[in-house]
């Protein structure tokens, strides 16, 4: 136990995800020894992130205005919406450079055991975005785990009456891996989603 404010700092840092007591102590002592200007920049960044960052009213992504930069960008294709669980997934897909449409962040996946059903997610907001009639394709990019698959199955069922093209991200073998190490579920899905090669 340390005195006063040092212990307070360690306790606060220990509240962060993935930071245990030892890590909290190490970060606290790093901050104590760091240059005052560096610490001030960190303080400013923390204050600003709480003050300025909100969620996009259209897609639910992280934004610094009413709309996020993707929804506000007129060059993005408004005909395709990629549905993801978290804002982190938007960043992951943007890194690929393959998708030029817009996003919709659900805010999680359906997980009845955690008390999360469709009503707790931004499903109704997704449906209301389809009212304009501009959207022609919905890409379901929820995580390839059981909750993500069930969420995709639920959304596909809800979207069916709209007559849109509803697609699901392919699952299969990771690039750079060995076939013999692939598990049955992944390999099975790779077979399901196999594609024709033009010779």
């Amino acid at each position, binding site marked *: 136990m340390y005195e006063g404010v040092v212990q307070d700092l360690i306790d606060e840092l220990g509240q962060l995800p993935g930071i245990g007591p030892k890590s909290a102590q190490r970060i606290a002592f790093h901050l104590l020894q760091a240059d005052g200007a560096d610490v001030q920049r960190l303080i400013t960044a923390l204050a600003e992130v709480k003050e300025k960052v909100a969620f996009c009213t259209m897609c639910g992504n992280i934004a610094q205005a009413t709309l996020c930069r993707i929804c506000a960008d007129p060059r993005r294709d408004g005909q395709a919406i990629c549905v993801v669980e978290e804002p982190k997934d938007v960043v992951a897909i943007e890194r690929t450079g393959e998708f030029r449409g817009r996003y919709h962040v659900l805010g999680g996946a359906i*997980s009845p055991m*955690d008390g999360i059903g469709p009503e707790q997610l931004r499903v109704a907001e997704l449906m209301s975005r389809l009212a304009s009639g501009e959207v022609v394709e919905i890409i379901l990019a929820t995580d390839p785990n*059981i909750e993500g*698959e069930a969420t995709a199955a639920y959304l596909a069922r809800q979207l069916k009456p709209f007559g849109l093209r509803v697609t699901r991200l392919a699952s299969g073998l990771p690039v750079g891996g060995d076939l013999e190490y692939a*598990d049955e579920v992944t390999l099975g899905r790779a077979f399901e989603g196999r594609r024709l090669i033009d010779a």
Partner: protein
Amino acid sequence: MPTYRDQAIVLRTHKLAEADRIITVLARERGKIRVVAKGVRRTKSRFGARLEPGMIVDLQCYEGRNLDTVTQAESIASYGDQIARDYRAYTSLATVLETADRLTEERAPALQQYLLLQGALAALAGCTHDASLVLDAYLLRALAIGGYAPSFFDCAQCGDPGPQLAFNVSSGGSVCPSCRRPGSVAPNRATLDLLGALLVGDWDIADASLPQHRREGNGITAAYVQWHLERGLRSLPHVEREPHVEKLPLATGFTT
């Protein structure tokens, strides 16, 4: 470091650190155990897909001070993956797994619960019966194994031979007129017959039951489970009991 192997059904998972998970499994010989699966959230994980809820795996772990760690996992049956493609079955699966988690104690062998759970997963994945009936059959039988077997014929209090007309959750099932307490209900006889059939696995009667009796049976089963587990099941309100009926979207201006 001592290692062991066991067949196990994955009940639930929790995120741990950067890419790990804590996996709660019901093992055939060891009962409920919590194990750490390292790196399973990475896309290149060798056994991440095998350690999803509803999967049955042949597990190898090494014993740790608090939690054991998975070193190998081989698939025995990928029921979870099959069930997740049908949203209605998935909501039943969640309640089945949550109930199994609640009815078993850590490191206390529970072979009967394991076998029952295995059967429920196979039935949900195989779509051999309506998912809602499979769920009710599982809940009633899991409670019976746990020592809370309901009576749907004779009086649960005094043993007076049935059929009895009233049903009381806190009394343990059907009750005779003299044992009937406030809060008792008088369900349709066909509903009690359906529940009795589900309890003993008479699927001919269960499959032939009418929707209104199934609905009434759902309510009685849910009330019975919630009462005996003392704490409500979080997944139960999310169970989709009725088959999905497609509706035209009102938002796009269509009219129904």
